[in-house]
């Protein structure tokens, strides 16, 4: 079930009503049933994987808590991580692994018969697997207690607003909220609705509209060169942000309606003045996950400079691989790591205010946009094609801009997009960047008339300009 489908528009009010009219002790059951229904409406069979992951991690945590022996604890942790990760490996990385191995061996003239599994990638597998892993590791570390109620624990793993594309929640934040008694608070409910409206605007308006132009260019790269490649890349930079942060906002908004607070996943990332800052504002739930469960265990900032850089590189390469089983994702992670290593090495820090910050924000935005080329390209050769041809004809700037624009989008339509789509996005994000990252919370200081007008206009834009009868998937579903 997609957030931007009619199915969800019917599903949410039903869940909302059932949840609030039920006594507290039944609410987790309603959430559990609705979460499994939510997932099964995509694919009934694949629910087995969530059940498997849930049961394995549940019993592993219980057993770890009961056992006194450190070795036994370690063994249980190892086995449970192995089992949980094995499903992820089989469904997501098996083919990539065999292709890479086959390529490597063939370089040494060792033939390897290719094995390909024709499996559909289960939606959200990377998200719920990581949530499970953090739970098991936290119990192992003694940071949280194992949840005795399998039903409550299953609700924590499968909580539908964040099941398929995050935020990847931490046990300390979500699990207690699922067990706690809730009382409806109108202010929170209204805030949730605002988040949802804003999330839908970002997804069904900005992301889905510009995706068409991005797909047009990236789907037929040899046909394009010069500014059209730059424009498509800039559009993708906005698309990926609006698609994913839009999902996160809808997820958070939905959870707020149920009086549950999910962590903020984005905090105006394109207003970052360093790559390090970008990663503190982009996909926060994943970057903090990698910090806590990969970077710090590897040694983190401890040890020599070289060691720290190595830790950073490994963390970002794994993070790239998390996004997809393709060398392009690894390259994307790699360039982000190298940029941060350069920032550390050259002692470049994000200026707090002033013109230098503006300039730095622009530079970081350009870097991030260029790095997205790896993320969007189908292959490394496609990515290099973009880099090699994006400045073709730039010696004649007017023609370069005119020709590049002409083949991608008309000037009139681009102007319309800027006025209707990009301007509100920029305003809210800028406001958010100045006020702690949450644009929707930040614009609460606006006079009531402005706020109402803003949400009414956004609602009208969604109603009139969204594609009707089509519910497009979210980009991050594939991860």
């Amino acid at each position, binding site marked *: 079930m997609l957030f931007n489908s009619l199915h969800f528009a019917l599903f949410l009010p039903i869940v909302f009503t059932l949840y609030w009219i039920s006594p507290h002790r039944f609410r987790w059951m309603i959430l559990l049933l609705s979460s499994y229904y939510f997932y099964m409406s995509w694919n009934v069979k694949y629910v087995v994987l969530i059940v498997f992951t849930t049961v394995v991690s549940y019993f592993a945590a219980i057993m770890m808590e009961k056992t006194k022996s450190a070795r036994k604890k370690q063994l249980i942790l190892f086995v449970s991580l192995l089992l949980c990760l094995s499903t992820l490996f089989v469904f997501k990385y098996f083919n990539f692994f065999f292709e890479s191995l086959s390529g490597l061996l063939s370089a040494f003239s060792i033939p390897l018969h290719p094995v390909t599994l024709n499996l559909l990638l289960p939606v959200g597998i990377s998200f719920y697997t990581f949530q499970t892993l953090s739970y098991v590791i936290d119990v192992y570390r003694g940071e949280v207690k194992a949840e005795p109620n399998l039903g409550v624990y299953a609700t924590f793993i499968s909580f539908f607003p964040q099941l398929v594309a995050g935020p990847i929640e931490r046990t300390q934040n979500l699990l207690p909220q699922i067990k706690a008694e809730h009382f409806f608070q*109108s202010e929170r409910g209204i805030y949730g609705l605002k988040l949802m409206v804003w999330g839908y605007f970002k997804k069904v308006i900005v992301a889905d509209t510009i995706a068409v132009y991005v797909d047009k260019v990236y789907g037929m790269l040899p046909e394009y060169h010069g500014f059209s490649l730059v424009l498509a890349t800039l559009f993708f930079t906005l698309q990926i942000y609006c698609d994913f942060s839009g999902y996160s906002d809808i997820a958070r908004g939905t959870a707020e309606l149920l009086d549950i607070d999910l962590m903020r996943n984005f905090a105006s990332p394109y207003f970052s003045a360093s790559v390090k800052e970008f990663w503190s504002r982009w996909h926060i739930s994943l970057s903090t996950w990698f910090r806590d469960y990969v970077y710090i265990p590897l040694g983190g900032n401890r040890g020599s400079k070289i060691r720290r850089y190595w830790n950073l590189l490994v963390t970002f390469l794994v993070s790239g691989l998390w996004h997809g089983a393709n060398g392009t994702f690894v390259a994307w992670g790699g360039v982000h790591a190298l940029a941060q290593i350069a920032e550390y090495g050259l002692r470049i820090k994000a200026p707090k205010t002033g013109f230098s910050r503006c300039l730095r924000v622009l530079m970081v935005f350009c870097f991030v946009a260029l790095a997205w080329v790896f993320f969007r390209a189908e292959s490394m050769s496609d990515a290099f094609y973009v880099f090699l041809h994006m400045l073709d004809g730039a010696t004649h700037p007017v023609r370069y801009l005119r020709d590049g624009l002409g083949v991608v989008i008309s000037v009139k339509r681009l102007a319309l997009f800027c006025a209707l789509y990009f301007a509100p996005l920029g305003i809210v994000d800028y406001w958010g960047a100045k006020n702690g990252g949450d644009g929707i919370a930040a614009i609460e200081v606006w006079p009531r008339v402005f706020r109402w007008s803003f949400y009414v206009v956004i609602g009208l834009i969604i109603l009139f300009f969204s594609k*009707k009868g089509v519910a497009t998937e979210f980009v991050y579903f594939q991860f």
Partner: protein
Amino acid sequence: MKKFLTTLFLYFLIVGSITVAINGAYLMVAEDDVTERFLNVPDQIQISTFGSSHGECGFDYEDVTDKICFNFSLTAQFPSYDYRLMRYYGDKLAAGGTAYLVVSYFSLFGIDETKTETFASKNARYYSFLPPEYIKEYDWKTSLFAKYFPSMTQGEDLLLIFMQRSATTETDNRDRTVNTETLEHDAHDRSRAHLIVEKLDNSGARIRNQEEITSLYEMISFCRERDVEPVLVTTPFLAEYSDAVMETAPGFLEEFHDIIREITTTTGVRYYDYSADSRFIHDYSLFMNSDHLNRTGARKFTNLLLQETLQS
């Protein structure tokens, strides 16, 4: 909960009221909606045209007063939809009549129409006059929007429609003449849109669209079964457009004509190619852009075509 529900209700009330008002304004502005003519298709049509905007702009039956004529062409309409319209309105075609099947360069090539970026907005226009079984990928939600809230199926074009209406209420686009200053650029853009975008596969080879080619064959058979003579036509273009076509896709015209030759040889259907007709190719007063005739051009072309095809 009371405050929450009140706010929610107020929000929906405001957004809903404005939506109804905008839709009303749209219905007034779009009263000359191009699809409205399909609700009043005459019986016993003796001359009909099926095709894309080249057919829509290229044919003007104003001067043909002794025959019942109807133009079924619509912008970016491919043969597969021409055939659907032909089947639905088949009973209205008079035996002994003529059906002009306009073949544009883009008609027979490219990816499946339903996969193209403009398909959804293009497809929405058929909901107002075709029954579900004739509509590609019919969807009841789109049907509801198209029938009761057509303004909501226009996408960003809605604003452009309002803006263009206020700018061009006096002068219809079809009465314009081509802007010679931007002609070359226009020709280049159009040839690219017609021959490249969504027309090539990953290896860069042109995709022959078998569904569209088959639809052309089926239209020819359908006409003949009803004693209607099908005639294939390519409308006139300005020389700048033809040059741009050759520059954008060298070898395309041979490929296009190969298919037409295959069809004419197999079926014996007549084909008239006016794309390089010297009476049109340099006459800017007859065109609204590099490949579309304006009203004057359409009248001249229609009269000429009727003369040359009905007499022979």
